[in-house]
């Protein structure tokens, strides 16, 4: 064989020689064919690297410098998506051992915690990523709101984001039952009865026997009247199948719309604010473009950067992709550190005969539980619906353009946000302090009809105060955006304060205590 190989042109002549050469070259050629256009060394190959790759072509080929500043997004959207991918991976691993059947479920979680190799670690990461995802999604929403990035043409993507928030909370809630411990059992009992709470209104109107939407909701959710095996398998199905699929679908639409809506929102004067691009940025339009706009030429409406050169953009590979990878790594690092430091809790096995006292929902629902402790229907369904509707309508009511893409942009700006935060905090603290100190209507007049309490309780009073303040802002600054800034800031303040009160200052019988050390029995 060696003799043959030494002769010139021998390889072309002998089929066997060519075969051997091809075998030697196979690994290199495999690597080359994996990426359709070679390694991303030049601007041209960097472009084809992104749009020629099924996983990367979601990204633009070039990204505006404004989008790449950390202060534009703080990477929150990518961080939320990263949490979801971590949850997907660890969740699938946990499914190897988890058995969704009462009592057996508890034992399988115990197995995962104490026996399964890396089981405790994976469960901890799953739990912490889940918690982080809730926080990050809320922060991401706040970022989009405060930079006024929900405005046209991005209205619909804001609504998609609301859907993703609801799915995130739904996934957390359904996952909460799966360990089948006391914490899970009573939190879900309360949650299922919140679903049933429209009965509070239908009962008061005397129409429950014909129109029992509350009972139907609970029946569909639990598959029974109590939390039992039917409820567990349903929550499991929702947690591992229905909600993740819906999440992936909405995420796809959400990401795709970012591209189609022209990338991230930025101020009109972003280019002057950024200054000239650094010297190493390649001015694309100095070379004759070889492509026409093809179909983009006849499509109506704005398409990304037509009519001017992409001077302020830089190649997505490596600038955007490396940034995304960095956020992904940071997210994983944070959840791993938390998972090492703090174990996911597991109380004693669920006991339908003995309620936890206090029985608390997951922390992000404790604000709601605080509202629910005044009225089940208004706190659990009425006010959340008002909040969701109000948030969803923001981009359709605020049709202004001033301040788009800038932090706290719009009339009033940062000062209005500070003032709204002070009002929001003062209002929620005053209402809570009053209700804790003096009680509410039923303590003063025990025979008050239920409908009065349903519609006049600390939660509804607070909602009214916030709405009134928002209208006041709108009139004072003569701007819908100012009203929205006031309302959203108040909403954040209310959410935080109610959550903190529910988490740290409520003890047995949902009584107020300054610290858990004062709880009776301690």
């Amino acid at each position, binding site marked *: 064989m060696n003799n043959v190989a030494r002769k010139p042109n021998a390889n072309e002549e002998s089929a066997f020689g060519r075969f051997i050469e091809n075998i030697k070259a196979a690994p290199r050629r495999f690597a080359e064919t994996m990426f359709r256009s070679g390694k991303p060394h030049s601007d041209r190959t960097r472009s084809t690297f992104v749009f020629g790759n099924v996983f990367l072509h979601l990204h633009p080929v070039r990204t505006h410098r404004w989008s790449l500043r950390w202060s534009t997004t703080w990477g929150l959207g990518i961080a939320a998506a990263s949490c979801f991918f971590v949850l997907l991976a660890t969740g699938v691993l946990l499914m190897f051992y988890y058995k969704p059947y009462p009592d057996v479920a508890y034992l399988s979680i115990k197995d995962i915690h104490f026996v399964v190799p890396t089981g405790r670690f994976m469960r901890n990461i799953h739990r912490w990523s889940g918690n982080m995802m809730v926080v990050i999604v809320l922060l991401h929403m706040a970022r989009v709101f405060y930079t006024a990035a929900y405005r046209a043409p991005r209205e619909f993507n804001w609504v998609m984001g609301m859907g993703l928030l609801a799915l995130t909370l739904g996934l957390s809630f359904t996952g909460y039952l799966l360990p089948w411990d006391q914490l899970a059992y*009573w939190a879900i*009992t*309360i949650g*299922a*009865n*919140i679903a*049933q*709470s429209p*009965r*509070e209104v239908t*009962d*008061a109107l005397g129409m429950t026997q014909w129109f029992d939407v509350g009972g*139907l909701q609970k*029946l*569909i959710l639990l*598959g*029974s*009247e*109590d939390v*039992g*095996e*039917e409820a567990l398998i*349903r929550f499991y199905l929702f947690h591992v199948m229905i909600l993740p699929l819906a999440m992936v679908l909405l995420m796809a639409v959400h990401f795709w719309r970012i591209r189609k809506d022209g990338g991230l929102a930025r101020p009109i004067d972003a280019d002057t604010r950024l200054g000239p691009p650094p010297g190493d940025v390649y001015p694309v339009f100095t070379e004759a473009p070889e492509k026409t706009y093809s179909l983009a030429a*006849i499509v*109506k409406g704005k398409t990304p950067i037509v009519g001017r050169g992409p001077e302020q953009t830089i190649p997505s590979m490596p600038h955007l992709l490396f940034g995304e990878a960095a956020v992904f790594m940071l997210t994983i690092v944070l959840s791993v550190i938390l998972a090492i430091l703090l174990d996911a809790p597991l109380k004693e096995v669920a006991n339908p*005969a*003995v*309620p*936890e*006292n*206090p*029985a608390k929902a997951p922390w992000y629902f404790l604000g709601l*539980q605080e509202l*629910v*402790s*005044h*009225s*089940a*229907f208004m706190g659990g369904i009425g006010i959340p619906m008002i909040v969701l509707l109000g948030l969803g309508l923001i981009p359709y009511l605020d049709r202004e353009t001033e301040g788009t893409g800038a932090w706290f942009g719009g009339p009033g700006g940062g000062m209005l946000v500070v003032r709204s935060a002070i009002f929001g905090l003062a209002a929620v603290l005053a209402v809570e302090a009053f209700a804790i100190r003096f*009680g509410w209507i*039923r*303590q003063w007049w*025990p025979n008050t009809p*239920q409908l009065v*309490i*349903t519609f006049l*309780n600390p939660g509804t009073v607070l909602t009214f105060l916030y709405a009134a303040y928002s209208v006041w802002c709108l009139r004072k600054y003569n701007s819908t955006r100012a009203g929205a800034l006031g309302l959203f800031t108040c909403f954040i303040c209310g959410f935080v304060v109610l959550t903190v009160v529910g988490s740290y200052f409520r003890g*047995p*019988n*949902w*009584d107020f205590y300054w610290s858990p050390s004062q709880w009776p029995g301690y």
Partner: protein
Amino acid sequence: MTTEAKPTQTGRSRLDPEAMPRRDFLGLAAWWSAAAALLFGFLGAMRLPKAAVLPSPSKKFRVALPASLASGQSYVPAGRSVAIYKEESGVYAISTICTHLGCLVKATDNGFDCPCHGSKFRKDGSVLRGPAPKGLPWLEVKPLGGGNLLVDEGKTVAAGTTVIV
């Protein structure tokens, strides 16, 4: 495409022609019937998750009160969320499921306390304070003879209804 898109008289381009009203009715009818079919199909499929037979245990149970049960003292049978009282006027049963959000209330000397959101009820089950929208229901009790009672958690009776055993 080398030919130019000629604007028509109305100023519209060939690429964006005016809608044909003649086809609107048929087109809309097709869309709406497809949507209606999907909706009814979905509603029909949704009958599946709404259980026709509930897996929960029977709401009726038989119980014998302990002889030592004093007046004003509650007896809660194991595994049941019912407090049974025996007074001179007769026997009665009150549900211990809080009408607020379904936690189990605890019978105290003065009535019932809910551990979850602080609802308090009087001895007769009526709401004293807290978020509970209505009082604890009284449940149907039937004497079976020989000191045995049949309690039905699914049937409520008017507050104050007692049964002589």
